[in-house]
C-alpha cells in the first residue's frame, strides 16, 4: 500500500488549490442560480441609464414611468463615451439622453430624447417602443389641454392587458431542472480540469524514467503498482464527484424537485472515469508538464465549448453542431437531458461514455507498455 499512500499524500499537496477552486465554483454557481424563470408573465426588465438635462415635470414623469418597470440609473453629467461604453460592454441595454429643451420638444412634436443602444437587439426595440409611447401620449396631452397631466398619464400607462402563459410557462420544477443542468454542465468542466491538472502533473512526475527504474527494481509487482495508482486516483476522483454532487444538493436543498439527481450523479461518475482514462493515455505519452497543462486546458475548454457547456449548442453552425454529437461531454449532458428522463432514454449516452472510457484505457495501456519497454 506504499504507492497508494504516497499518491494520496501527493494529492494532499493540492488542498490549497482545491479549496479556492471549489469556492469560486460555488460562488459562480450561486450567482447563476439567481437567474431563473417564472410561472407568471413578466415583461423583460431593462438596464437603463438616463441623463436628465431638462429636470422638468415631463422628464420626471418619463423617469418615473421607466423606473416603474426597469432598473434605471439617473446621472447628471452627460459623458457620451461612458454611456456608449456601457452599452458596448453590455452593462446596460440602453442609455437615454434627455435634452435641456426636452419639454418644449415634446410640446412641438420634435425628436425629444436620444437613445444609445444596439438597434438590432430586441431590448432596443422594447426601449424605443416604451419611450415613444410615453412621448406620444405626453405630446397628445399638450396638444389637447396645453399642459401635461402627469397623474392621468401615469394612470393610463399602468392600464395594461392581461397576459397568460400558454400551458404553465416556466414551472418551478422546470426552473429547478434548468438550474441543476447548468450547474452539472459547469461541474463537468471543473471536474475535468481539476482531475487533468492534478493527476496529470502528479503522474508526469511519477512516470519520469528515474523513478520508474527504481520502481522496476522494487519488490512490488507491476499489477499491484497499477492497482494502487488506479485506486488512489479513483478515490480522489470520487471525492471530487461527491464535492460537486453534494454541492448541488446543498445549493438547491429546498428546490430539488424536478432534478434528475441519480442521473446527474451517474453522469459525474462517468465523466470522472472518462477523464482519468484519458489522462492515463496522455501520461503514457508525455511527462512534459507544459504539454500536460496545455492539453488539460485545451481538452477541457475545447470539449466544453464544442459540447455546448458555455454557449448553447443551438447557436452553433451546422458543422459544429454535428461535431458536438460525437463528443463525450455532449453525451454527458444527454444523460440528464430532461427533468423526467428515464434510464432507457439515457442508456445510449451512458454506453457511449463507457465506450469512450474503455477506448482511452486501451490506448493508455498500449502506450504505457510501449513506454515501459523503451525505458528498460
Amino acid at each position, binding site marked *: 500500500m506504499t504507492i497508494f499512500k504516497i499518491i494520496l499524500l501527493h494529492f494532499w499537496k493540492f488542498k490549497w488549490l482545491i479549496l479556492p477552486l471549489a469556492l469560486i465554483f460555488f460562488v459562480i454557481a450561486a450567482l447563476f442560480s439567481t437567474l431563473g424563470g417564472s410561472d407568471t408573465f413578466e415583461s423583460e426588465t431593462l438596464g437603463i441609464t438616463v441623463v436628465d438635462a431638462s429636470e422638468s415635470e415631463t422628464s420626471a414623469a418619463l423617469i418615473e414611468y421607466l423606473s416603474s418597470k426597469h432598473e434605471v440609473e439617473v446621472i447628471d453629467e452627460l459623458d457620451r463615451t461612458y454611456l456608449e461604453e456601457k452599452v458596448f460592454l453590455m452593462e446596460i441595454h440602453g442609455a437615454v439622453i434627455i435634452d435641456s429643451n426636452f419639454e418644449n420638444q*415634446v410640446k412641438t412634436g420634435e425628436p425629444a430624447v436620444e437613445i444609445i443602444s444596439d438597434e438590432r*437587439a430586441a431590448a432596443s426595440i422594447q426601449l424605443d417602443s416604451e419611450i415613444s409611447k410615453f412621448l406620444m401620449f405626453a405630446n397628445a396631452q399638450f396638444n389637447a389641454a396645453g399642459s401635461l397631466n402627469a397623474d392621468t398619464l401615469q394612470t393610463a400607462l399602468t392600464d*395594461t392587458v392581461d397576459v397568460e402563459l400558454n400551458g404553465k410557462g416556466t414551472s418551478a420544477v422546470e426552473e429547478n431542472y434548468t438550474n441543476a443542468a447548468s450547474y452539472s454542465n459547469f461541474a463537468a468542466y471543473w471536474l475535468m480540469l481539476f482531475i487533468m491538472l492534478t493527476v496529470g502533473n502528479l503522474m508526469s512526475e511519477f512516470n519520469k524514467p528515474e523513478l520508474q527504474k527504481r520502481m522496476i527494481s522494487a519488490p512490488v509487482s507491476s499489477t499491484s503498482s497499477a492497482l494502487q495508482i488506479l485506486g488512489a486516483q479513483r478515490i480522489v476522483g470520487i471525492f471530487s464527484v461527491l464535492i460537486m454532487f453534494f454541492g448541488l444538493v446543498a445549493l438547491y436543498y429546498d428546490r430539488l424537485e424536478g432534478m434528475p439527481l441519480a442521473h446527474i450523479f451517474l453522469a459525474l461518475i462517468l465523466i470522472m472515469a472518462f477523464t482519468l482514462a484519458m489522462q492515463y493515455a496522455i501520461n503514457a505519452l508525455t511527462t512534459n508538464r507544459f504539454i500536460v*497543462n496545455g492539453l488539460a486546458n485545451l481538452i477541457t475548454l475545447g470539449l466544453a465549448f464544442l459540447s455546448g457547456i458555455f454557449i448553447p449548442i443551438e447557436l452553433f453552425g451546422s458543422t459544429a453542431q454535428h461535431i458536438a454529437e460525437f463528443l463525450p461531454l455532449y453525451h454527458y449532458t444527454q444523460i440528464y437531458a430532461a427533468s423526467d428522463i428515464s434510464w432507457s432514454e439515457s442508456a445510449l449516452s451512458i454506453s457511449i461514455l463507457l465506450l469512450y472510457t474503455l477506448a482511452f484505457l486501451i490506448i493508455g495501456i498500449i502506450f504505457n507498455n510501449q513506454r515501459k519497454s523503451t525505458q528498460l
Partner: protein
Amino acid sequence: MNFLRLIYYLLVINFKDFGFIFWTIVYPLVLVTIFMATTSNLAVDDLEEIKVGASEDSEYFEALKQVEFITVNEMTVSEARTSLSEENITGYINKDGTLIVEENGFEASILESVINQIQQTYTLGIPPENFNFDVDFIETNEMETEPQVVMYYSTVAMISLYTVFTSMELISSMRPNLSTMGARFSASPFSKTKYILASSIAGLFLGLLSNGLVIGYLMIFNDSVLFNHLPATLGIIVAGNIAGLGLGFIIGLTPRVNINVKSIVPVVFIVGLAFLAGLMGPGVRTVVNRELPFINQLNPLAHVTDTIYRVNLMDNFDSYWTTIAFLIGITVVSFFITLIALRRKQYDHI
C-alpha cells in the same frame, strides 16, 4: 555580449522544448479556432418581425396590422396554442383582449408593450386628432455590439499573461532549496540580476511572439476586423506580458513546493481570471460585472480585455494609460517583493 548570448541560449532552450511551444503557441491557436467555429452565430439577436395570431373579432386586429414589425394572422385559440408551443408565433390576442404568450422574453415583452399602447391610447381619453402618430420622438444613436469579440480579446489577454510561466520557472530554478540548478547557481559568482534580466527579456520575447501569432491568425482568418489600432493593442499586450512576469515572480517564491504542483497554480489562476473576463462567453462576464463588479476591477486580465475592446472597437483611449500603469505597477510591486525575498538567503543544508 555575454548578456545577449545568455538571452539567445535561454530562447534556444525554450524553443527546443516542444511542451513550451505547444503551451504558448499551439494551444492558443487551437483555442481561437474552436471559438471561431462555435461563436459565428453568437452576435446579437436580430429582430426582424414578430408573428402574432389574433381572434377574428379582436379589437386590436386592425391596429396591429399597422405596426411595421408585426405580422398578424387570424386563427382560433386552439390553433394558436399549438402554434405557440411550436414557437411559430410569439403571441395570440383573444377576443376579450387578453394576450397569450408561450414564455417570458423580449419579443413577448415588445408585443405586450404594443398592445398596451393601443389600450392605453383609449384609456388616456384624448381625441385621436391630438395624437401625432407619424412623428418620431426619438433620435437614435446606433451601435453594433459584438459579444463574441470579448472572447477573442480575453484569449489575447490570457496569452499575454503567459509570461507568468517563464518567470515562475526562473525563480524556482534560482532557489537553492528547490532545484539543483539553484544550489549550483547560489554557489557560483554569476550575477543574479543579469540572469533575471536575461530570462525576463527572453520570456517577454516568447510571450510577444505567441501574442503576435494569435493576433496575426485572428486578422487573417476572422471575418470581422478586430484590431483597428494595432500599435496601441501591442502596447497594452507588452504591458500585459510584463505584468505576467511580475506575477510569475511571486508564484515562484512559494517555498518548498514542487514545480509540478506550482505550475498548476498559474494555470488555474489565469484560466480563472480569463473566465471572469469573458473567455467562456459574454454571459459570465455580464453577470460578474453586474453582481460583483469589484472582481473585474481587480482582475488584470479583465483590464487588458476591456482596454483592447475600447481601443479597437470604440476608439476610446481614456483608460489606456491607466491600464498600462496598473499592469506595470503589478510588476514593480512583485519585483520588489522578489528582491526582498531572495536577498541574503542562507541555508544550513540543502
